[in-house]
C-alpha cells in the first residue's frame, strides 16, 4: 500500500476536497495584515504573504523574528490579534488546531510531539485508527504502516516503540504521519535540526514527493543551503516584520542574510589567532555507556571539535567526562589525575557543560531566566544559608546584558523565550562560574545566523581568557571552520583526528559515515 492510498482514505468525507480544487500556482493560503500582539509586545506586525498551491515556500529569519508565531497562527494554536486569513479564497478563523487539521493544514515540529511509549504504527494512526466493530485492527494498521514506511524508503520497522528510534528517525515518522493525513498544506519547522545527512536526504525526497502530489510546503530553516536546494520561493521575517518574499532564482544567500539581519554580512565563522597554552585536560582511554577507549586532550586557547553522526557517542563522551555517567579510564586535569565521580566534582574542577537538549537537559523552562542563569552559582551568591539578593540580580542582569538576551526582565519565564535566546541562557549560566573547560554540545541547533555569530565571538572571548573548548556539532562547516583540532566519532569510537583544515569535508564526512 502506498502513501497516496493511505492518505486519500478519508478524501470523500473531509473538507479537504476544497483545497484539491485549487490549481497549482494559484493562491491557496493568503495572509492579509495578519498580526499578533502579546500584551504590548508585537510578536508579528501586520504581515501580508501569499502561499501558492503546490509550492515549497521557505521562511527564514533570526530567532524571535516571528516565525514560531506565524506557525502557531496557521496551525490554530494561538488566535490572531488582527488581520485576515484566506484559505482557498474564503476567510477562515483557524481558531483551533482541530480546525486547521480539518482543513488540511498540518505542521511537523522541530521537537517531535508524538507518544514515545507507543509503536511506530500506533503513532502513525494515532487519532485515526482503523476500526472494525468498534475494535482496533492492530495487525491491519501495522501492515499498512509498514507498507507506507517501505514505500517511502525509510527502512524503519513499524512494530518497534517510537522511543527506540533516534530523534532523526522519529522526525521522519512525524513527517510520514502528517503526510498520511491527506494534508494539503504542510509546515516544517526546522525539520533537519537533529537529522543526519542521510535522514535529511530521505526527508527531502519525501518533501519533493508531497510537492508532486500537489501539497503546499512551508519550510522553515536556518540552513541556507537547504533553502536553496528545496524552495521555490522564500519569505524573510525580521523582528516580527515580513521584509520581503523572493523567488529563489532571483536571490542569493548574501541578499537573504542581509534582509534577515539588516547589517552587513560579517564573517560568520569568527576565528582569531589565539596562542595555545598549557594542557587543561588530558583524557586517556575513557570508556563509558555509548563510547569506548576515547583519548584526547584540550589545551588553553584551543577549540577541540567532535564531529560525527547523531548517536556516534560524542554527547555520551561529554556526559561521561562531566561525571554524569560512570566511566573507566584516566582523566588528568591540569597535569593531575582526577576522579570525576559526579557532576559536582566536574563543576568544582572547572568544567562547564552546555548540554545537547535545551528542553530536557539545559533549562528549567517554567522558572525565570534569572534562576536558570544563577543555578550553578547559588553557592557563591549566598552568604551563609541566605542568597544575597543584590548579587543574585546583578549576576543575572550582567549575563543578560553581555549576551544580549532579548527579555524585558530576568523574571520572565524561560518558556516564553525564543530558541536562540534560550540557548543564550544555557550558555550564560556557565559564564560566571569561572570554568576552564567549556563543553558546548550542539550550541547552535535551532539558532539563527545572527545569534550563531554572537556565540562564535563568545568562544573567542573565552579562549582569550585562557579557557579551552570542546565543541560538539553535527553541522560539519561549524566544527570544520572553528576547531583547532577535529576528532571524528563513529559508533562510540574516536576514529580519526585532524588539525585545522588538514582534511577535506569529504574525508571527514567519509570517516564519520564509515565508507
Amino acid at each position, binding site marked *: 500500500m502506498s502513501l497516496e492510498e493511505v492518505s486519500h482514505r478519508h478524501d470523500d468525507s473531509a473538507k479537504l476536497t476544497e483545497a484539491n480544487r485549487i490549481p497549482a500556482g494559484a493562491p491557496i493560503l493568503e495572509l492579509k495584515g495578519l498580526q499578533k500582539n502579546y500584551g504590548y509586545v508585537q510578536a508579528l506586525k501586520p504581515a501580508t504573504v501569499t502561499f501558492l498551491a503546490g509550492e515549497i515556500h521557505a521562511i527564514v529569519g533570526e530567532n524571535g523574528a516571528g516565525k514560531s508565531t506565524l506557525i502557531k497562527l496557521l496551525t490554530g494554536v494561538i*488566535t*490572531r*490579534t*488582527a*488581520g*485576515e*486569513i484566506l484559505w482557498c479564497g*474564503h*476567510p*477562515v*478563523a483557524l*481558531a483551533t488546531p482541530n480546525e486547521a487539521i480539518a482543513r488540511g493544514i498540518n505542521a511537523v515540529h522541530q521537537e517531535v510531539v508524538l507518544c514515545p511509549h507507543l509503536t511506530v504504527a500506533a503513532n502513525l494512526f494515532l487519532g485515526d485508527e482503523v476500526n472494525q466493530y468498534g475494535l482496533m485492527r492492530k495487525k491491519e494498521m501495522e501492515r499498512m504502516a509498514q507498507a507506507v514506511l517501505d514505500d517511502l524508503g525509510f527502512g524503519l520497522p513499524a512494530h518497534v516503540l517510537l522511543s527506540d528510534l533516534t530523534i532523526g528517525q522519529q522526525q521522519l515518522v512525524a513527517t510520514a504521519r502528517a503526510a498520511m493525513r491527506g494534508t494539503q498544506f504542510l509546515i516544517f519547522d526546522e525539520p533537519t535540526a537533529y537529522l543526519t545527512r542521510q535522514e535529511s536526504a530521505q526527508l527531502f525526497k519525501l518533501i519533493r514527493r508531497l510537492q508532486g502530489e500537489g501539497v503546499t510546503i512551508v519550510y522553515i530553516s536556518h540552513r541556507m543551503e537547504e533553502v536553496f536546494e528545496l524552495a521555490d520561493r522564500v519569505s524573510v521575517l525580521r523582528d516580527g516584520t515580513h521584509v520581503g518574499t523572493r523567488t529563489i532564482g532571483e536571490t542569493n544567500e548574501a541578499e537573504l542574510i542581509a534582509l534577515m539581519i539588516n547589517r552587513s554580512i560579517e564573517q560568520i565563522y569568527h576565528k582569531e589567532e589565539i596562542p595555545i597554552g598549557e594542557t587543561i585536560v588530558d583524557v586517556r582511554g575513557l570508556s563509558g555507556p555509548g563510547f569506548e577507549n576515547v583519548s584526547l586532550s584540550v589545551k588553553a586557547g584551543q577549540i577541540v571539535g567532535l564531529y560525527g553522526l547523531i548517536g556516534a557517542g560524542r554527547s555520551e563522551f561529554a556526559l561521561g567526562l*562531566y561525571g*554524569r555517567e560512570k566511566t573507566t579510564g584516566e582523566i588528568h586535569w591540569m597535569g593531575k589525575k582526577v576522579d570525576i565521580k559526579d*557532576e*559536582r566534582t566536574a*563543576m568544582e574542577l572547572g568544567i562547564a*557543560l552546555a*548540554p545537547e537538549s535545551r528542553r*530536557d*537537559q*539545559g*533549562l*528549567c*523552562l*517554567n*522558572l525565570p531566566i534569572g*534562576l536558570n542563569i*544563577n*543555578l*550553578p552559582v*547559588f*553557592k557563591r*551568591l*549566598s552568604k551563609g*544559608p*541566605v*542568597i544575597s539578593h543584590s548579587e543574585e540580580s546583578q549576576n543575572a542582569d550582567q549575563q543578560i546584558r553581555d549576551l544580549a538576551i532579548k527579555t524585558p526582565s530576568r523574571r520572565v*519565564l524561560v*518558556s*516564553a523565550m525564543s530558541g536562540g535566546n534560550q540557548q543564550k541562557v544555557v550558555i550564560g*549560566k556557565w559564564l560566571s562560574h569561572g570554568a576552564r573547560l567549556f563543553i558546548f554540545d550542539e550550541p547552535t541547533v535551532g539558532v539563527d545566523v545572527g545569534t550563531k555569530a554572537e556565540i562564535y565571538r563568545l568562544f573567542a572571548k573565552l579562549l582569550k581568557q585562557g579557557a579551552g573548548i570542546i565543541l560538539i556539532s553535527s553541522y560539519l562547516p561549524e566544527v570544520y571552520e572553528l576547531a583547532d583540532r577535529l576528532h571524528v566519532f563513529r559508533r562510540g569510537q574516536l576514529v580519526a583526528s585532524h588539525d585545522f583544515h588538514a582534511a577535506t569535508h569529504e574525508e571527514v564526512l567519509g570517516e564519520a559515515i564509515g565508507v
Partner: protein
Amino acid sequence: MTVTPTEIAAPPARRKVNILFGLTLIGLLAFLWILLGFVTASFWTPLNISNLLRQGAMTAILALGQTFVIITAGIDLSVGAIVGFCTVILAWLLQAGVPVWASILITLLIGVGIGVFHGFGIVKMGLPPFIITLATLTSLRGIGLLITNGSTINIVNEPFTNFARADFLGVPSLFWMVILVAVPSYVFLHLSRWGRYLFAVGSNREAARLSGVRVNGIIYLAYILSATFAAFVGVLLASRIAIGNATQADGWELQAIASSVIGGTSLFGAVGSVHGPLIGAFILATINNGANLLNVNSFWQRIITGLLIIVIVYFDQLRRRRNP
C-alpha cells in the same frame, strides 16, 4: 462555520473576569471573615477566633511541609498517618515514663526517619512518590494500631496537655507554632539556595543535576521536612486531645494537599510559596468553622470544600494562562 476574525479577537467579557482574578487569597479570607461577622453573632468572639486559629494551625503546618514536596513535583500522602502514628508514639513514650522533652525529640526523629525512608524509596528504589507514601500511609496506621492493640493510650501529663489549650499574648499557642514553623520555612524556601534547588528539581531534574545540584539530596530533604512537620503536628495533636490513637487525623493528608493547592502550589511542580498554603489552610478552617456556626450539615461542608477547591484552582489557572 466560517467565523470572521473580528469575532474571534479579544472577547470584551474579559474585563469583568479580571476583577475576580485580582481577588487575592488573603482578600478571600478577609471577605469570608467579614461575611461571617455579619451573618453570625458568634463569629467575632474571642473564643471562636481562638478555636478557628487552633483548627487551622495543624493543617497549616502539614500543608507547609506538603508544599516542599509538591514543589519538587512529588506528593506525600502519608502525612495524616504520620500524625496519628506520632500521637501513639508520644503517648507510649510518656506512659513509659520518658521525660516530655525526650519524648517530643524522639517523635520528631521518627518523623525524620520516615522522611528518609520515603527519600530512599524514591531515589534508590525508583518508586513513584505516590506509591511509596501510600504504602507508608497504610502501614503506619497498622503499626500504630498494633502498638496499642487497637485501643487508645491516655496521656496523663498535665503540663503537656495544657499546652495546646494555652494562650500566649492572647493568641493560641498552636497558632504560635505555625509562626515558629513558617518563619524558618520562608527563609528556607524563598531566601536560601536550597529553596531555589527545590524549584529547579521540580522544574527539570536533569537540568538541575547538570547544573551541579545534588538532586537526590534535595528530594530527601523535601520528604524529610514533610514527614518531620507531620510528626510535629502529631505532637501538637497529642497535646490537644490528650490521647494517642493511630486512627486520628484521618484524611488530613488531603486537607494538606488541598490547602497547598488552594494556596497556589502547582501539582506539576516548581510553583509554590510559604504564605499560600498557610492562607489556604485558614480558608478551609474558616469554611468549616462558619458552616458549624451556621448549623450547616457537616456533610455539606465536605461538598462546599470540594467545590471551592475547583473554583479557586480554576481561577488560578485562568490567571496563569493569561499571564504566562
